[in-house]
């Protein structure tokens, strides 16, 4: 055993794990904060919906598609000036969060849009017939009715972000992915590679389980 885990510096693994969790938590939080309203807007401005606005819808949709089609690794580099402007550094955990959010928020917005499309039109019509404003329909009907789908979307986005954080090592963000890259791959330290991959796997499993549990709880009717 000693021989196999010889290369492992557990302090380093610990701090890398914390970095990953910070990146994940921060970027997921901001992805939801930005992606949720964006998804609602995408839905509402769509054809035949409450605020049908063809121009706005096409513009938003195009913006989302551009951000989603850029490979994350490119986004990471392209975003550097903007990241500097927002968080004052393009390095470390803080420097990784803006590009992570830019990559994940549009993805999450699409998931929100899809979840909202699943809400029965009749329920929206009934709310209109009761004299609800658009705001009341969004907050009182659409979001509560689509809650299971939105929670599932947050889970999927979180899992995708775990993958993205591994790439954020490119801008010196640290984290488990970075550790796997520098030690495991570049220095051929297979034990470091295995430990980091197992930790990432556990992280994904935990995220998915929590997500599934929340979805199940929200859909219990």
């Amino acid at each position: 055993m000693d021989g196999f885990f010889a290369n492992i510096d557990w302090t380093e693994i610990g701090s890398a794990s914390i970095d990953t969790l910070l990146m994940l938590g921060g970027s997921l939080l901001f992805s939801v904060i930005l992606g949720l309203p964006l998804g609602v807007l995408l839905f509402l401005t769509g054809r035949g919906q409450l605020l049908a606005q063809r121009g706005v819808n096409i513009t938003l949709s195009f913006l989302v598609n551009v951000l989603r089609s850029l490979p994350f690794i490119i986004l990471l580099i392209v975003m550097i000036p903007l990241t500097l402007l927002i968080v004052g550094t393009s390095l470390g955990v803080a420097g990784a969060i803006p590009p992570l959010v830019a990559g994940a928020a549009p993805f999450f917005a699409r998931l929100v849009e899809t979840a909202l499309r699943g809400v029965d039109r009749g329920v929206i019509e009934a709310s209109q017939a009761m004299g609800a404003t658009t705001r009341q329909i969004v907050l009182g009907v659409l979001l509560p009715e689509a809650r299971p789908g939105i929670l599932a979307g947050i889970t999927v986005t979180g899992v995708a972000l775990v993958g993205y954080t591994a790439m954020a090592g490119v801008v010196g963000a640290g984290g488990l992915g970075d550790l796997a890259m520098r030690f495991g791959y570049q220095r051929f330290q297979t034990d470091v590679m295995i430990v980091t991959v197992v930790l990432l796997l556990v992280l994904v499993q935990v995220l998915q389980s929590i997500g599934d549990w929340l979805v199940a709880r929200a859909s219990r009717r």
Partner: protein
Amino acid sequence: MIHFQNIHKTYRVDGHDVVALHPLDLRIETGEVFGIIGRSGAGKSTLLRLINGLERPSGGSVFIDGVDIAALDSAALRKQRRRIGMIFQHFNLLASKTVAQNVAFPLRLAGDADRAAITKRVGELLELVDLGAYANHTPAQLSGGQKQRVGIARALACAPSILLCDEATSALDPETTASVLRLIGEIHRELGLTVVLITHEMDVIRRICDRVAVLDAGRLVETGKVADVFLHPRHATTQRFVQEYEHEERVDPSGSGVPSARRVRVTLRGESVHAPVLARIARETQVDFGLLGGRIDRIKDTAYAQLTLALSGGDVDAALRGLREAGAEVEEIR
């Protein structure tokens, strides 16, 4: 009173204009139960939704007690909608909320009642629809009939003066349909509101409506009291609806059995249904009565009998006169 004035509606579908409603005029009196019957695509759903502004007309006006719904801005329209309850074929309850929360929803939207007042009102409404024990259930735990009762409680929450029913019983089995229609009838009597319902079933019209309008391909083809329209349908569409309800051809085309017989349809309404009219007239005029078809039933609260008879021998003209004198409506069929 609801007054449609020269109202029409055209949709634009894939670059083509599709007429949903040709220009029509219609008055629905305050406090009556008014039925609109038509096939799918006849325009009845559009007509119903013009009343609460879910559809805007392409032209014309919809007056409710003198206010033109079609001319209201969206804030005024929302306010107006709170005075108009609506129930739906598929109930359209919020799956994420409990029965009590669903009924409370329109009250919360209106925003002018505090929590205690809402709780009290919801309790009353659930008692009214006989679901007091189901306040904390979710819609998924209820049967179709129970869901529609929740829909009715929700529609009545803001004490509307008009109740719109959009195929409210079409998704329900016959027994549940009867009980939901009974409930709507009771509510109509107790609260005195105006009920407008759309349906494709003559039976629904027969059970609770005072007056009926028949729509066919966007045109109003017949309007009148239910008893008149039901017993003497004039337009071909109306006749088909009545036939469908009766599950039979109104007249057996193969004749009467007696070649020389004259065929007549005799309609009796109200008290005269049970009077021994036919036997007396047969005795007096020596006419033989052959029965070709018939039905004894009720239209809302009024009993009626409609019999198709073959009259032969004796003095047939005197028999027809006698029937008319006894209060029957007599139509000769050729």
